[in-house]
């Protein structure tokens, strides 16, 4: 009996929380189907009188979304993959290898997180321009190939893998390199999946940077397309939300697909101990 109430209580809390979490998402969907006057109705309405699916069609006409989409996919994939690679290597060094200056280097890297990104835009633009990378895919990708947050996250997980597993791998003839790719990475796949999702989303939603380092439509990504609905005269929320929905749906699908890996991990066996 007690157990049952506990379960019910859990669901009640989760459902209440879910409503709060869902609200903006539902708002987005609902607005994307409204007429313009409905979007600014006070108090707000949740269910539009007529579902304006045409908003989606109209929204997609406003900008070259297909091109943007392809760019987004390309940039996101390369950025995420590259960043994972550099981060896995660095996290391994920080978690497993002994070297001079380890702690200092760690703090320095940590320090790079402490500077607001707003300060880095201009100097990095200058650097890229000196490297003749402005207005190329390189500019969209290269600066984001390292993320200390990812390194930090992976380090925390790598460090939780028992030493014994490392020893066993050594005995089995695995060099550090093999240990990393055949043991550590598969064992940490839930964390890696999680950081992948976070990075993909970060890269997918990046707005300011792609705008600043590119000058041609051909290189721009989806979030830039959302600009089409905002102007001096105000914002066309219905179309904006339709386009936003179009932009985030791939991320939702990706998450739904990957979330079971985040949870599965090594499940019952666990890492700790």
């Amino acid at each position, binding site marked *: 009996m007690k157990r049952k109430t506990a379960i019910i209580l859990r669901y009640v809390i989760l459902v209440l929380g879910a409503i709060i979490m869902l609200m903006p998402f539902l708002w987005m969907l609902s607005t994307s189907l409204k007429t313009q006057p409905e979007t600014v109705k006070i108090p707000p309405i949740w269910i539009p009188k007529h579902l304006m699916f045409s908003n989606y069609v109209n929204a997609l006409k406003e900008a070259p979304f297909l091109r943007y989409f392809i760019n987004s996919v390309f940039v996101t994939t390369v950025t995420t993959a590259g960043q994972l690679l550099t981060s896995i290597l660095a996290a391994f060094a920080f978690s497993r290898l002994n070297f001079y200056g380890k702690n200092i280097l760690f703090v320095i890297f940590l320090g790079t997180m402490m500077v607001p990104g707003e300060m880095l835009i201009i100097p990095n633009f200058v650097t890229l321009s000196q490297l003749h990378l402005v207005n190329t895919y390189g500019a969209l990708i290269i600066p984001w190939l390292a993320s200390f947050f990812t390194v930090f996250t992976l380090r925390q997980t790598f460090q939780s893998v*028992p030493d*014994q*597993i490392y*020893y066993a791998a*050594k005995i*089995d003839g*695995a060099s550090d390199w093999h240990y990393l790719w*055949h*043991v550590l990475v598969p064992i940490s796949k839930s964390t890696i999946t999680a950081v992948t999702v976070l990075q993909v989303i970060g890269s997918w939603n990046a707005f300011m940077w792609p705008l600043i380092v590119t000058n041609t439509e051909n290189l721009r990504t989806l979030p830039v397309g959302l600009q089409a609905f905002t102007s001096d005269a105000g914002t066309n929320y219905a179309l904006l939300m339709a386009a936003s929905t179009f932009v985030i749906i791939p991320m939702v699908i990706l998450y739904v697909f990957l979330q079971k890996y985040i949870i599965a991990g090594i499940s019952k*066996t666990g890492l700790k101990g």
Partner: protein
Amino acid sequence: MEVTFKDVSLSYDGSREILHRLNFTIPEGTLVSILGPSGCGKSTTLMMISGLLAPTSGHIFFGDEDVTKQDALQRKVGMVFQNYALYPHLKVLDNIMFPLKMAKVPKAERREKAIKLAKLVHVDDQLDKKPGSLSGGQQQRVAIARALAKEPSLLLLDEPLSNLDARLRIEMRQEIRRIQQETGVTTIFVTHDQDEALHISDHIMVLNSGKIQQFSSAETLYDNPSNLFIAQFIGEPVINTIDIEDFDDELTDHVDAEILKRAKKVGIRPEALQDHDTGADTLATITTKVKTFEKFGREKNALLDFHGKRLLTTEIEAELAEGQELPLYLQKSGFYLFDQEGTRIFGGDQDVE
């Protein structure tokens, strides 16, 4: 591969030394067991041989080569860890195949080999499970298979059979012995089971408190314990130990007076207390009183009182009544005297060490 330790010491934390200046040589192609009380440093010794742990001081040689500075990868030993250390994310089959994969053995071949080893240790019906859903003994057997898969030139086994039942244990130790003899791989085997050590090994090293107590064959260990610790540690039931003062003059005629003076403790194996005179083998006679008489399976233990001290013998066949007087014949083999430091000064074969 011959393994030599030269003055090897180890301390984990830099302050408390766990192993003190170990010196030994394990001859090529032999199987050596390491015996010793829990916490004496057996696993630590193996870890140093494998290269997972660097000695604080001293040198380790494989053959003539000084490997002290080499890491585990270079030393290429095989090892079963005391806690198995299976890869939690790999299935049983993949766990066994892992060293083969690292050695770049072709896929088909490694599979075949792994399945053969899995059969050997009777886990061939568990190949698709992850270690987390194996029983303790099954995990241990997978660890053995994994270590054997590598075909190393030096095999280190840290209590590899501790979670197996008696039957399987015997079967496994025989398999290990067979493989060891067939391939001639130098093998070091940590066990807490003396019987196992006696049956399987060419030599036994007994460690205590980070020091080697004796390193010799199984028989020598039993017949010629170099000190009181060994005498007490080896043998089941445990040797009877009483103070020299507890004897009246039963020994005076039979042991050199000089030695008797230095002696502190007397050790008498339970089977060295016979109920009949064995002639030449009898050293002295004592009189005891029966306290209890017990029978477990094939074993019969009689607990006796000798000058107020307990003595145990296993050599009495007939059922005895409590309180009954009993003359006993002390056998030469199985009777030892130890000095103040515990060193054996009488009994056993004095030449053998």
